[in-house]
């Protein structure tokens, strides 16, 4: 896929930079890096006394998977979830398990609905978020507090998802910036 895009871009006569090509390293590494950056959000200088921030690593992962299916492999939940667990405060293994399951579910949905639009993508992501956050809470806690605790975070996460999608689309364009000189 990368190869075909590259060829298409190079064959476009109206491009400014004729003898430039994207770096294959960046084109491959970019999605992994952005998900890991999202997972690092607990180290941002926001000290919250209640869960408020959306699980950014998870949202970025879903966005990449919906925007460019096949760019991140189905098994990406294992390494990326492991990284997320190091910082999220959840017991180690919770993101590995939940992200892997989420990616498999997403793959099945995508095979069922190959022709998707924005609304369907958002609905699917919202469904996954609605399943992910309460499950993560159930895993982390022995005594489950009232579900009201999660309500603001759920709302923020669902409404932040399209914005994260735009951000991922921006990174996707950056990913294929042609700065490597050919020849």
């Amino acid at each position, binding site marked *: 896929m990368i190869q075909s895009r590259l060829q298409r871009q190079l064959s476009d006569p109206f491009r400014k930079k004729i003898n430039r090509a994207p770096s294959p390293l960046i084109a491959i590494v970019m999605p992994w890096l952005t998900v890991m950056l999202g997972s690092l959000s607990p180290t941002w*200088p926001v000290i919250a006394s*209640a869960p408020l921030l959306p699980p950014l690593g998870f949202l970025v992962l879903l966005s990449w998977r919906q925007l460019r299916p096949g760019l991140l492999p*189905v098994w990406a939940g*294992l390494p990326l979830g492991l990284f997320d667990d190091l910082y999220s405060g959840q017991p*180690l*293994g919770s993101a590995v398990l939940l992200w892997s399951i989420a990616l498999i579910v997403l793959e099945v949905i995508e095979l069922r609905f190959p022709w998707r639009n924005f609304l369907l993508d958002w609905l699917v992501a919202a469904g996954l978020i609605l399943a992910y956050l309460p499950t993560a809470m159930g895993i982390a806690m022995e005594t489950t507090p009232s579900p009201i605790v999660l309500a603001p975070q759920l709302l923020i996460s669902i409404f932040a998802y399209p914005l994260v999608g735009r951000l991922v689309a921006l990174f996707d364009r950056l990913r294929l910036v042609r700065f490597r000189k050919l020849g």
Partner: protein
Amino acid sequence: MAPPPNRRTGFSRRAQYTTFFGYLAAGLGALVGGGLLIASLTDSSRFSDVRTTATDVTAPVARAAAASRAESRGVFDAISGYFAAGRQNAALRREVEHARVKLVEAQSIAEENRRLKELLGLTKQDPRPVAVAMLIGSTSSSTRRFATISAGSRQGIAIGMPVRSPLGLVGRVLEVGSSSARVLLITDTESVVPVRRASDGIPAFATGRADGTLQLRLINLGINPLKRGDVVVTSGSGGLYRPGTAVAVVDTLLPDGGIARVLSDPGASEYVTVEQVWNPAVAPASASAPGPANLNQGGATR
């Protein structure tokens, strides 16, 4: 969007195998995750080394970011303060008048306290704090309430030490890395702090509710004596927290206690001090050992 052509496996054996092993690896990933989860749920301290190493790596960057947090908040405070300046000035002037009188009274009481203590032969003084550290991060998207501070075993921090800000108790140290440490905030649902009402010493337990408030459970049941606005402080039983550290203000009353707002909002406190365990002889030998006995002595951990 149509599925991209390269994901149709077609007749290529290699492509078919790649897809198949991809699904296999995804299923295995979920299994590995389940295994790790069971391992970490049975023993909370099992992967703490990996976690503390990870926070040690990001600590320098987070420290720089935390400094910028303080500055940006200062800007907002300055702007909002500009609008309320006149009213605030009058209110503060009144408050200072009151406070001056109270201060003199408090000084005389402290003096009397010192003399009485001398009389009794009590020489115990307030210990010096172990370290002053910055709050550099918190688990803002998880329901567990942990924070990271910018000091670790190199600064002499050990597991179980209480962490406080000038406004009140923040939490206690749970995991220690070489230059960073993880703090269990008192708002976490697994944190239990023995407290008493500041005015008359009615004992209670303060458990976190994960949403920034504490649930107070009175030890002596009966008619609920709490009132809105009551301040609770640590009682020192359990030996972990020094008695008299401010904790929370009662906000809502419940039949068996109340819901209290935490005094030292960790979001507003930039620097925190880490103190010695108040009375190690009484404190549980391993502050992170699970069990109901430990739960009553300052909080169990996972």
